[in-house]
């Protein structure tokens, strides 16, 4: 009796499963297209989005997985009234289901950002298939589609890898920093802060077209307000404590042109409300540099005085650069990518409560006090003269 009951119950379960249509409708792996990078532009004339995607090209392979000549990636473009529709429209051409999980970079065209970040970017936050750790970038002076197509001649196996490495090159040259979807949206969500986004441009060479880092875009109130140059970006990274490595070129130093490599850097920003009721930020930069190159001379070893002079020159250089970029952002762009507003909020919520509604207008009144303490740790193999 018991076993009969169990059999009946199991039958009921099976019927339940059949009614639910439990059988998956997931398309097989043969009908998927793996997206590696996405570029989105907005065509103002037609009022539609143009999506350019770089995907795996599996047409030149055998069952053994050997690549029999040719590229491993291909470019697909499609258009639609919304970004998601445009991506789905690619299936009209390919007949395949796009999957985002391997997406390495999202490139937004200037057209999108000037139109307002809320149009065109929502899909990457809302859609469950996109990932929050994907880096984002903006195409400067070029279309996003052109950036995605860079290195189309197939000189590298997966050009999207190169794009990703270029965006991660801030670890080497401190001319950019990787901004993921999560960080980007976090900055956009903050009431007073402005977001920053790495900018990519194209460089034509004899053997192909390559993407390169070209500063940083500043976004305020969900719109692109301007770009920073490479040096300005580095200075900005100093303020927000995202410098990892890179070089400083002192062109007018006492020993000629000196190239110093940043080995370590730490920035502390202190929020202060002065007695006069003014808002001041004390930015203290602690930097360790290594001397990599100077103009060659007979006595290669430096003496202590020269090193101290070099340190003070480097320190001045850094302070100047940082003040310049702060002034540019606060005054010219009326933007706060340094999160000064957030710091005020954390330090003094009551002051923030008064100021946050007119923060953009208040920005030029902010005082900053930048001090850079530089130490030259290594001078190379030549050593130091006694």
């Amino acid at each position: 009796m018991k076993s009969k009951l169990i059999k009946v119950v199991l039958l009921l379960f099976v019927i339940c499963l059949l009614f639910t249509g439990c059988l998956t409708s997931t398309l097989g792996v043969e009908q998927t297209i793996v997206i590696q990078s996405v570029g989105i532009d907005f065509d103002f004339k037609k009022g539609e989005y143009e999506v350019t995607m770089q995907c795996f090209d599996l047409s030149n392979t055998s069952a053994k997985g050997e690549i029999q000549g040719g590229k491993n990636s291909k470019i697909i473009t499609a258009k639609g009234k919304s970004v998601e529709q445009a991506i789905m429209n690619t299936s009209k051409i390919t007949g395949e289901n796009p999957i985002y999980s391997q997406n390495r970079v999202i490139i937004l065209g200037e057209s999108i950002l000037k139109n307002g970040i809320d149009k065109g970017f929502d899909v990457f936050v809302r859609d469950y298939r996109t990932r929050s750790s994907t880096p984002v970038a903006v195409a400067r002076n070029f279309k996003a589609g052109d950036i995605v197509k860079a290195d189309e001649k197939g000189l590298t196996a997966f050009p999207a890898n190169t794009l990703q490495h270029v965006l991660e090159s801030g670890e080497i040259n401190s001319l950019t920093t990787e901004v993921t979807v999560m960080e980007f949206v976090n900055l956009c969500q903050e009431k007073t802060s402005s977001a920053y986004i790495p900018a990519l441009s194209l460089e034509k060479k004899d053997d192909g077209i390559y993407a390169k880092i070209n500063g940083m875009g500043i976004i305020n109130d969900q719109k692109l307000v301007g770009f920073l140059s490479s040096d300005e970006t580095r200075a900005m990274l100093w303020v927000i404590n995202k410098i990892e490595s890179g070089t400083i070129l002192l062109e007018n130093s006492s020993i000629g042109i000196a190239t110093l490599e940043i080995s370590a850097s730490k920035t502390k920003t202190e929020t202060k409300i002065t007695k006069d009721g003014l808002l001041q930020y004390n930015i203290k930069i602690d930097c360790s540099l290594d001397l990599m190159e100077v103009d060659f001379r007979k006595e290669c070893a430096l003496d202590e005085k020269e090193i101290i002079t070099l340190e003070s020159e480097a320190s001045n250089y850094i302070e100047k650069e940082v003040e310049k970029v702060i002034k540019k952002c606060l005054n010219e762009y009326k933007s706060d990518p340094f999160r000064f507003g957030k710091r005020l909020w954390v330090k003094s919520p009551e002051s923030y409560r008064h100021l946050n509604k007119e923060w953009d207008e208040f920005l030029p009144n902010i005082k900053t006090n930048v001090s850079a303490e530089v130490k030259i740790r290594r001078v190379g193999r030549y050593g130091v003269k006694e």
Partner: protein
Amino acid sequence: MRIKHILLGYNKNKNGGEWMFKIFKKSFEKTYAPVENPPAPSASSKISTCLSENTFYIRTRCGDCFDIVIRNVDVSGTNGFFLLCDGMCDGLKVNNNVIEPILNSKELPQEPVQKFETIRDKIVGEVDIKELINVEDALEHAMSGFLVFFLEGVEKALAFSVQGFQTRSITDPITDVQSRGSREGFVEHFKTNITLIRRRMRTTDLRIEVQDMGTTTKTKICLCYLMDRVDGEVLSNVKSRLVRSEYDIVLASGNIQPLLDTDNPAIFSAVGVTERPDVFCAKIAEGKIGILVDGTPYAIYVPHVFTEEFQSFDDYANRPYYATFVRILKWFSFIFSIFLPGFYVSFGTFHQEVFPQDMLFQILSAELQTPFPIMLEAIIIHFIFEIMREAGLRMPKTVGPAVSIVGALVIGDAAVTAGLIATPMLIVVALTAVSSFVVPSIYEPVAILRFVFIIIGGTLGFYGIIILIALIVTNMCSVNPYGVPYTAPLLPLTPAATRDIILRLGWKHLGKRRLETTKMNN
């Protein structure tokens, strides 16, 4: 009408039965007339003082059996006969140690009972003697290789232990291979096995109890345990299970394994199997009960827990760091052999993001060329592997190389070049197959579960696999063979016992406290 009925076998017979086939039935019955059943053993099959009655009983019970031999003799004026099974006795022992001394002895009393007792106590001294009072017992002993002696006028018989049937000599164990263990494995004859155990455990605490199982085969079953370490409840449990069995035929230890296994439906067996006497002795030294079955070299022991599958004799002969490394290797091999195909299928079908980019490219390009979806491919190739494994196990050795070459060619290169199977799938199969032989004792459940995981991975993805893993672990946790949790000492955690599970600590730690499996409860 009638012809049609004839052709159709139509039943016209009022008595019932198909008359069409009656002719065939009759001839069938003539040729294959069932043999009349032999008379059942009577309740009183006691040995009679009259020899002819005993002879008649034996002949009636055994029929015209070629190998049951009755040799009539005259023992100093008294009639008697020897009962033996041809081929089971050692001819030299029979003649030199039993028959000649009996027949050639001159100082035997005339009175049959006294004669009988003299023969028993004085004449035959070099072999073991048993006294029997039942003809059924006598037959049983004769079929076990004893020489049974009946004397006119005596209600007893003597069984002389003169077994000399051919047995396999002690050789290397085939299944349980250890690099530092002994080269002796159990054989089919249980007495030889008992000597192998006794030689290793020269203690008075070792108890060996023999009983018969199977109403037809009357196979000898030996229970071995150490008196001071075994749990009384477990022992009585085992004994009662063996006693209440209604087996007709017991030919291998695998036949009685279900008797001793857990009552709840379980995936893994809670009975351990070994072919090695050293492993067997180690297990009974832990307080377990070992069972030897006559006619099979595979001994079993209870209770058996899951973590013992990963322990081997070599672990205690090697240095602790190497033994630990091998243990961890075994655990990883188990995980690979059971989960790798399922994981690969689920990741390839549902969760492609897990693969690194280059690996994904290789997998996709390979899978694109094949006609089957990943799940089906995995099932096919694993099925082919199982066919090859089974064929390799059963085929004659002369055909071996040919089959190996075909298998390697077919599955190896040809299938991939023809585009039937993708190369990554082959790598998965190869790794799975090799890993599954690192722990061969649990190959059966692993082989089946592998298929289940492939199907679940291909239909429900990684989340289905995880649910199945949880179910399997819960099932394992619900099994308590003989009161011992099957997943002990990991679940529930007995911290002191974990020194010999994944790690094999040095003897300083292992020798600290003796832990018995039967005492690892909640």
